[in-house]
């Protein structure tokens, strides 16, 4: 019986098999690296209509988060402030802080016209996931845990992946991320450390007390976030 394939075909088959394995491996690695939220989301930093610097306002001037994100302790959303909140300081007719800066003009226009500012959304969960800010901040989770060191950000960017696995890391082991109620919005809070104690351990110790005091038992069942 004549050979259907030439002998060189063996090599092609071998190469193909190796190629498929390597290709599949690359694909899996590529998917794992590029398609997960830790790559697609972290670092997302859209340009905002006004170059509002959290570094300046929070880091240097020491504004509390709640000065602008007012409903965070009572609502699922942290809420973005109305233009009038900016106008408390930047209004030309009142305090006039940097009132003539060109950066303030869009705010001024919004305030005068009554039309909203078009801020760009940075953090966005999928529609089937329901996150509630108020429960987290009331139960000892700081803003820093999810949003990073916002006080050091000139332009806000997506700091943490906010993926389900990332959420569950804290939901299964909340102690290192808990702090006293008075320190929730303190961006630079450090746990009190005894001599020779690591910071990690100090965080855990504080967190354990908060966990007991506030009955922090984070749910890990689907019902908590998916409805």
């Amino acid at each position: 019986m004549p050979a259907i394939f030439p002998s060189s075909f063996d090599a092609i088959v071998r190469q193909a098999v190796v190629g498929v394995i390597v290709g599949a491996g690359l694909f899996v690695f590529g998917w794992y690296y590029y398609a997960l939220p830790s790559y697609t989301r972290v670092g997302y930093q859209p340009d905002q209509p006004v170059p509002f610097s959290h570094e300046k306002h929070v880091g240097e001037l020491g504004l509390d988060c709640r000065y602008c994100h007012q409903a965070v302790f009572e609502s699922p959303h942290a809420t973005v402030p109305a233009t009038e909140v900016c106008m408390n300081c930047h209004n030309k007719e009142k305090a006039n802080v940097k009132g003539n800066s060109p950066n303030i003009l869009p705010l001024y226009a919004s305030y005068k016209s009554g039309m909203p500012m078009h801020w760009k959304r940075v953090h966005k969960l999928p529609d089937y996931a329901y996150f509630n800010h108020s429960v987290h901040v009331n139960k000892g989770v700081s803003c820093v845990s999810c949003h990073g060191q916002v006080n050091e950000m000139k332009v806000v960017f997506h700091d943490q992946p906010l993926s389900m696995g990332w959420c569950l890391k804290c939901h299964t082991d909340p102690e290192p991320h808990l702090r006293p109620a008075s320190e929730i919005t303190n961006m630079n809070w450090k746990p009190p450390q005894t001599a020779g104690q690591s910071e990690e351990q100090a965080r855990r110790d504080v967190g354990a007390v908060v966990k007991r005091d506030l009955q922090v038992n984070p749910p890990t069942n689907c019902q908590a976030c998916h409805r």
Partner: protein
Amino acid sequence: MPADATTRKDYWRSLDDLADTPEFRAFSREEFPGFANVYDSLGEAEFADVKDPAASLNRRKFLALSTAALGLAGLAGCRRPELPILPYSSVPADQIGFVVHGKPTFYATCLPRPGGALPVLVESHDGRPTKIEGNPQHPCSLGSTDAHAQAAVLDLYSPDRVLNEKYPGVMERGIHRRWEDFDQFARKEAAALIKSEGQGFYILAEDMHSPALTQIREFIAKKLKNASWHTFDAIDSSEVRKGTEIAFDKRMHVRNRFDKAACIVALDCDFLGLEPDAVSASRGFAQGRKPDRPLDEMNRLYVVEPSFTVTGTMADHRLRLPASQVGGVLSALANKLRSQRDKLKKPDSLPASMPASSAPEKWVDAVARDLAANAGKALIAVGSRQPAWVHALAHSVNEALGAIDAGLIELRDTPAEPQESRSLAALAADLDAKKVRTVLVIGGNPALSAPVDFNLKDRLKNARFATTREADGISQPIEVPTNTLRLGLFFDQTSEVCLWHLPLAHCLESWGDAEAADGTLCCVQPLIAPLNSSGTETGTAPQRGGRNVLEVLMLLTQFAFEGDARANPPTTSYFQAKTRAYDLVRRSFSARTGLALTDPTFENEFNRYKQIGFLAPDKDKALRTAKPAGELKFNAARLATELAAIAPLAAPSAESLEVAFTPDYSVFDGRSAMNPWLQEMPDPITKLVWDNAALLSPATAAALAVRTGDIVKLTVKGDSATVDIAVFVLPGHADFCLTLPFGQSGEMRINHVPDGGGFNVFPFRRSCCLHIVPGCRLEKTSRTYDLVTTQEHGVIPEGREILHEVSLTEYRTHHPHARHHHGPTIGIAPGTLPDEAQLQKGFQGGYGNPQQVPAPAAVEQKRFSLDLARPELLDSQFQWGMVIDLNACTGCSACMTACQAENNIPVVGKHEIKRNRELHWIRLDRYFTHFGGASETDPMVVTQPVACVHCEQAPCEQVCPVNAAVHSPEGLNLQVYNRCIGTRYCANACPYKVRRFNWFDFNKRRLDELRTPTLFTKEGAALTESLVPETLKMQKNPDVTVRMRGVMEKCTYCVQRIERAKHGAKLAAVEVAEGRRLIEIDRSFQAPAEHESKYAKPRDAAVARTVGYDLDSRGRVVVPDGLVVTACEEACPSRAITFGNVLDATSRVAMLKAQSAEYLLLGELNTKPRTSYLPRIRNVNPELM
């Protein structure tokens, strides 16, 4: 049909089920009927009869198209969409402290409707009204609603009202106009009308009692005194008022208090369904049927009616009689009662002679004895379609029984009118006489629904006005077209024949007021500006935003308040009208309370009125309450003369049929015909969707040789009126009469909905016989119609006991069914707490199965287990459960619509429902039963609501290959949409058949283009965004995921409400612990124990409910009972549904579950459902058994 009593089924869903036909067996056997030819179609189950062009795509082409589209979509999907956040520029002052982004706000308002407004609370998310609940403080609602109230929010967002490309808002002679054009017209018209003092000005409106509107009518009566006001409603209740006129010499509103009655006789009276004030009647009636009351306190209901109504299904004894013969039963009853004078309170009010009757002797005998024995607690209720003499006679019997003195019947004066309302007939005559210069048609749809002999459609279309023209000093008679103005919610049949169509604002968009059925004043306040009313800047966009009745009338009459003309100029601009509409509401409030507008307390009181939604009766100076019984003078003489003149109608026969009209359960009098939720809601009795049909009994059908679905022609002796309509054979219907539900228009006018619309029966309705038509003939035509009914959907296989129906005596003595299942259903007796050992174990094992001990290690590794052998441990402090009391469930379907509104359930259309693909999470199974020996032709009916029962050992969870069906530690059977890949194994495994599959992208496509290939539009372009109109998206509940195609869904026990309540409890506990709540900590709370959490325990249940949290025996934060309310529970007018934490022994649900009569549906499968049922109890009269 099996006639043998031993072999026949105890309960059945349809005649096919009873006869056990092969078709029925085939349909009920398969979860997804017609799925066999999946590969020939687009991957969906199709019946062979479908000739959809899209379905002819073969699989190969379909795959090719889909792949190409997927490739394109993949490229576009790489970029992250930029989403804006739009905060306020400055927060409106009245919202600060009340409106928080992300949290719903509730506003009190009311829904005006004939017979009395329904007071409601409306949930608003960030300015979008999304859900309507009853106003818990008002006695006419007590927190409950009905299906029509639930669906009202969809009317607000209906694209046909505000976005329809076919009709562009304000219209004149078919050309789209702007409101400014109308303003101009109104100014000219008003000037002319004022000059002639309203000569030729006609208004045709629904009968709506609004004190604000009355002020405008007063102005009209004064300044435009020749104007003429006409009222017309398709649902005519004038016979009720005529009845009071005969009996008491005065036209009055009648309101029955079923909560006080022990023995009720409903004569053709659907007081639980279609009669006005059904919500509070249902509550009152159900209150009298709680089985835990003493034996003699459970009420007994006798019903006499031609067709099954929801009231008829609740009857303890039901007599089916043609509507014309119902009066005869009453006269027979009165006759019998006269012979028991000694037991009656006021026997002299019974007339001496009564019309003859042929009512069954034995039945009348027994009922009369029961009535007499219950004198003072007995009540006879008569339906509004019965003639006036029946009402008057009922008043005399009620008076004799002492019902009026005992307050079982409340009679109220009809509101005084500034100017007498004239009839539709008078308007028709004036239209013919060409006297009508301008006619404004407000609400309703008279061109469709007016009696056919008025021919209002043509009369309005061809209306002309005879006037004179001054030319060269000579006046010349001429005729000009009448200005027909139409103010309506939708562009309907009346709009088509009028010159102007003016969009009416929805009641959630307008200011106003109305009276509830008990006479209290309720306010109508807007939650949102009229939709699509902006866009005027462009100057070209059609204006669809509505205006309300007050505004339009003020503009047309140049309304001015009394007093200084300079301070109160006539209304000539919309801006004025808008502010004055609000002023009218303030003034009517001022008039009712006696507070002057300038009174310093006025603003406070008025704000309070807006806040609670109605005027508290103690502040109402002009409260139109029930007349004290002493003030009513019963006029026996007048009744006697009326009765002497009655010639009773002969009983119908096959040659001379009788037709009775009734409003439709789904679309009511037609006002909901544009509402897809209600159109798709199965009729409580026939379970028909999207259609109506003529109902007749099996015997009549056999005699006339017609079958369900045959189109017949109805004619009446001596008149040309005729109608073609499909018939539906309904067991339990009276013989030789037909019931025609009106409201459907015979065409589907909702845009993008391909089928449905039913039959227009108005052409058969004449002014001589609005309700009952004797002497009709039926002719079978060769045509048939595809009626779709869900009565055979979700059949639970035979041989299982699913329905418990017992007599009250049986219930009291035996509880035979309660023991039939698994003994004690929950191991906790009411009033005691579960012991510590049980709590340590968690709730694994559930009801009555204490020997099952969980694996010791399970506590620690409970959560991520995918191990089927070790299911989720039920260790939470919350164990949710539900009890449905079949003894209270009337089948009214309010829960179904409430669920649809709450849980973003799309409509699927008639075509899909035929294929068993409805998406309603709650199914209301209507069973015919043979209770008490009831025959097949005259059965009893029980309705059983079935939604996901949340099995503790759920078959669906065990078959899901991707773990999308999982259990939560709180006992919820969860469906995780983002995991679901649509294998549908779970639906096949579910013995309750409650899982629903999204066969199409109902949230992305409109109903007429479901069957287009994935990612393509109907025209073949790439589908990039949702084709569903924006306004419909505004209705969606933001707390519930909008599901996509290919996802399984089912009842979640309203998990979003559970989570909201849990979050609320947690926040409340923190706030109290940190002193952020203004509460007297010392007095209301116990100090927290050492080494436990910081949370303080509320001292008692009342404090717990007020602050919103409680601590359980282990110090864990729990939600107090009653703060988690599912949508169905909240809507249910008879409180048949109870939801709560079964672990809390003091909760209502735990107490109900402790009742021994409680049973589990399919409990023998050991699925351990969390929803359990209480049996239907029939309080039978032993004499009639």
